[in-house]
């Protein structure tokens, strides 16, 4: 095994063991370099002093990722658009209150996640709960355990793979999905995720574990060896 290092939303480094045979194609939209980070600080400073073009550059930079986030949480196009727009407008209005103790992007993600969650709760009030989960140990023990194709990305075209990912994440319960999206897609830390959602750190950890296991199980039917596409 090799150890890959990922940059988290706060600029701390988070490690994830990866098997050499299964590295994916890097996504150019993530993992900002230190140059990009320094650049972000400059843009935020300029925007705070009233430079509208600097703020618009920040919007250009993150609008795709924020739309992905709000789509992933709400799973509804109209709500995702509204949540994204309100998140950018609110971040613009409250920019002076941004202290710079986290990355601007992390701060923006928190605002966008809250906007998306507000809409999700309105639309599906019974499906999202801030309560701590009631845990039974046996209910998350994995069942279907089968060998996977070592490189499932090569089995499916990119659009086909995206459809699979959309389908499986859509079927995940909203409270698990939201934690997974913040931690594993947007790379917020456990503490940042807890803060954004107003739940405890143990609740984040518990939901993340369950979300990951449920997604693994849902992907099993697509990725197991010998599965024809």
């Amino acid at each position, binding site marked *: 095994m090799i150890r890959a290092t990922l940059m988290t939303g706060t600029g701390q480094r988070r490690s994830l063991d990866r098997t050499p045979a299964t590295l*994916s194609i890097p*996504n150019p939209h993530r993992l900002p370099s230190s140059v990009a980070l320094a650049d972000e600080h400059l843009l935020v400073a300029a925007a705070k002093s009233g430079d509208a073009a600097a703020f618009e550059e920040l919007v250009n930079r993150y609008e*795709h990722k924020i739309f992905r986030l709000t789509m992933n949480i709400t799973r509804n196009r109209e709500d995702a658009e509204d949540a994204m727009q309100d998140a950018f407008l609110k971040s613009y209005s409250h920019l002076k209150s941004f202290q710079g103790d986290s990355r601007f992007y992390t701060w923006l993600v928190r605002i966008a996640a809250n906007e998306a969650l507000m809409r999700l709760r309105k639309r599906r009030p019974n499906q999202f709960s801030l309560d701590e989960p009631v845990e039974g140990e046996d209910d998350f023990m994995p069942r279907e355990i089968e060998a996977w194709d070592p490189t499932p*990305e090569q089995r499916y075209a990119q659009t086909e793979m995206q459809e699979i990912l959309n389908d499986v994440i859509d079927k995940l319960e909203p409270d698990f999905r939201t934690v997974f999206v913040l931690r594993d897609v947007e790379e917020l830390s456990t503490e940042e995720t807890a803060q954004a959602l107003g739940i405890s750190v143990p609740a984040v950890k518990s939901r993340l574990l369950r979300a*990951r296991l449920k997604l693994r199980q849902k992907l099993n039917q697509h*990725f197991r060896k010998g599965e024809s596409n």
Partner: protein
Amino acid sequence: MNCKGVIRELSNYIDGDLDLAMKQELERHLGHCEDCTMIVDQTKKTVEIFCDSEPVALPSDVRVRLHNALHRKMQENLS
């Protein structure tokens, strides 16, 4: 450590959050348990695939609406 223990610590393990003694104990179990090894590798793979997924395309009409709303807000602030 048994299989349940591995599953309980799975997230901490793949995030590199386990202390050394616990990590070694878990890896000793993986050394002889094919099922747990598959679950660990597949869960890592699951995280990687989602983590590396491309942002969804932002439809141009949505982008235009966003920037129009932003420009209105900026004008309000100026006036």
